[in-house]
């Protein structure tokens, strides 16, 4: 048994009785014990509860009872997703002692699928960052090279899968926080379409952008976890009112030959040469397999980072106003009036990057700047959506690099916010347009660091996207 084995193999072994969930969970706990001191993927491991849950699933399976689709598989959750009775910290001092009073919808669905909820993973504070270094509660490093960042903000989830601590994890993405760390850690990560996965119980950052998504070692694992969490939810007003057709059963079907678009704006200079070579290699393999490759243009791509950071920070400044030291979270120990209490609780409780984004968001929503910044950014967003719609008239999926470089050195971008923001340059467009996008590993660079390539599909086109990704994975083997 091996935590690096594919989910398919682990599920087969669990179903045949070759391995028990208890053994699998203990294997995961052993891997965390052995490796997490240096990787720092987890903020909290629920050891006892996980073993108890695993034993219960083993007992039910042995008794011939019906068990869920992920029965007995350990899953790690990013620490901005609520599990009732557990801490949800968002890696922030302001929520360090917050105990969730309810389950997120994705947690309810994972419990129904009999997944074992193993623990909570580290992240950039409130999901604001691209390296997981903005956590107030711990440091996560890249399992492939401990001098490098794992990416962010879901860096704990992708590092946990990459280090073989868990086969599956959930992350969340506002501007690339699943695909970018998946690329840096050499695992598969899917940002579903906006509306596809319920956000009830996910701590909000940029509400018009946020999505929860799966992370796994391979495409099949991502498809299985996605199937377990996707579909309408009546507790999320932004939930797409479209039934979810499971993606996993049709994953290996070849379908019609793929038409793949290469957006030229993603390939204009600045790309690390090995990433360009990995892309060329996959294009060649796809072509050999019968796919049509088309050059496409997404002309507003160069404005995407600007629009993204204006919209995301504006929404964050509004969402994070709720943290004021009254109903939950940290409260200052200093004496003062009510307003002093708000200001001190927030100023002491939030980290610098969160404060920077709240400030930027407040600025671009303020009288006199709203039209030029926030409203203009929402108009740019319309143009970005139109760019994608035009491109998808001619192709099934788009193929592009996930990041311009492989994992950067720890500390390298900490003092330069704009440099950190540009790490998301290839991922933000999918969030702005609300379309699904997936990053998959495509080899390593000359330093042995993983390279990620991403596929993008039209809104609610996850099943075709996962088929294309599965094909890519086979072609690259």
């Amino acid at each position: 048994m091996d935590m690096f084995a594919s989910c398919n193999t682990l599920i087969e072994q669990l179903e045949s009785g070759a391995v028990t969930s208890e053994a699998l969970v203990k294997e995961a706990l052993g891997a965390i014990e052995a490796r997490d001191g240096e990787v720092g993927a987890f903020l909290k491991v629920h050891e006892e509860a996980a073993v108890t849950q695993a034993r219960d699933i083993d007992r039910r399976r042995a008794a011939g009872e019906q068990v869920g689709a992920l029965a007995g598989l350990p899953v790690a959750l990013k620490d901005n997703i609520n599990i009732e009775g557990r801490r949800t910290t968002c890696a922030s001092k302001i929520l360090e002692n917050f105990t969730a009073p309810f389950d997120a919808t994705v947690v309810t669905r994972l419990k129904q699928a009999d997944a074992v909820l193993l623990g909570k993973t580290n992240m950039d504070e409130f999901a604001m960052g691209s390296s997981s270094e903005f956590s107030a509660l711990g440091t996560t490093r890249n399992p492939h090279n401990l001098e490098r960042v794992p990416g962010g903000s879901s860096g704990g989830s992708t590092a946990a899968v990459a280090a073989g601590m868990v086969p599956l994890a959930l992350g969340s993405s506002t501007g690339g926080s699943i695909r970018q760390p998946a690329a840096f850690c050499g695992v598969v990560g899917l940002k579903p379409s906006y509306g596809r996965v319920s956000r009830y119980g996910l701590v909000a950052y940029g509400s018009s952008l946020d999505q929860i998504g799966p992370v796994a070692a391979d495409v099949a694992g991502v498809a299985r976890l996605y199937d377990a969490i996707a579909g309408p939810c009546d507790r999320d007003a932004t939930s797409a009112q479209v039934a979810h057709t499971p993606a996993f059963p049709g994953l290996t079907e070849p379908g019609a030959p793929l038409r793949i678009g290469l957006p030229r704006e993603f390939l204009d200079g600045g790309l690390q040469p090995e990433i360009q070579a990995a892309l060329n290699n996959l294009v060649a393999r796809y072509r050999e397999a019968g796919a049509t490759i088309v050059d496409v243009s997404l002309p507003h791509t160069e404005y995407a980072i600007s629009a993204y950071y204006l919209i995301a920070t504006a929404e964050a400044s509004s969402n994070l106003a709720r943290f004021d030291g009254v109903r939950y979270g940290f409260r200052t120990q200093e004496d003062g009036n009510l307003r002093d209490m708000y200001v001190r609780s927030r100023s002491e409780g939030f980290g610098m990057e969160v404060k920077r984004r709240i400030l930027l968001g407040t600025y671009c929503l303020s009288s006199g700047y709203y039209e030029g910044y926030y409203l203009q950014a929402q108009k740019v967003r319309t143009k970005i959506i139109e760019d994608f719609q035009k491109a998808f008239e001619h192709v099934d999926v788009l193929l592009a690099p996930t990041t311009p470089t492989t994992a950067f050195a720890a500390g390298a971008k900490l003092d330069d916010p704009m440099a950190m923001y540009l790490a998301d340059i290839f991922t933000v467009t999918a969030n702005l347009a609300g379309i699904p996008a997936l990053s998959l590993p495509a080899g390593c660079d000359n330093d042995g660091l993983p390279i990620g390539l991403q596929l993008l599909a039209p809104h609610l086109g996850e099943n075709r996207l996962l088929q294309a990704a599965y094909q890519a994975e086979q072609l690259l083997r």
Partner: protein
Amino acid sequence: MTDITHETVEHYAKLANLAFDPADAELLARQLGSILSHVEKIAELNLDDVPATRFVLPQEPAHREDEVRPSLGAEQALANAPDTESHHFLVPKVINVK
């Protein structure tokens, strides 16, 4: 580069219920100036006739029937509060403050 002063930072910090010491305000002024210089790129597009996107789904946000459902009880709702008294959130005095 967009000129942001530490006074500007302090003004917006006040609007956001935040406070910074002078050194952080200076640093943030420089950083926000640099970020704004970059994001101002969107001003070069003429989008006067383009509608703004607020919601990406081809549907209106969903509504459900306004029916009473179980929700958090008072004990649970107060469980995470820093300070409470008899089913109330306790805050510093706001009336008759000297």
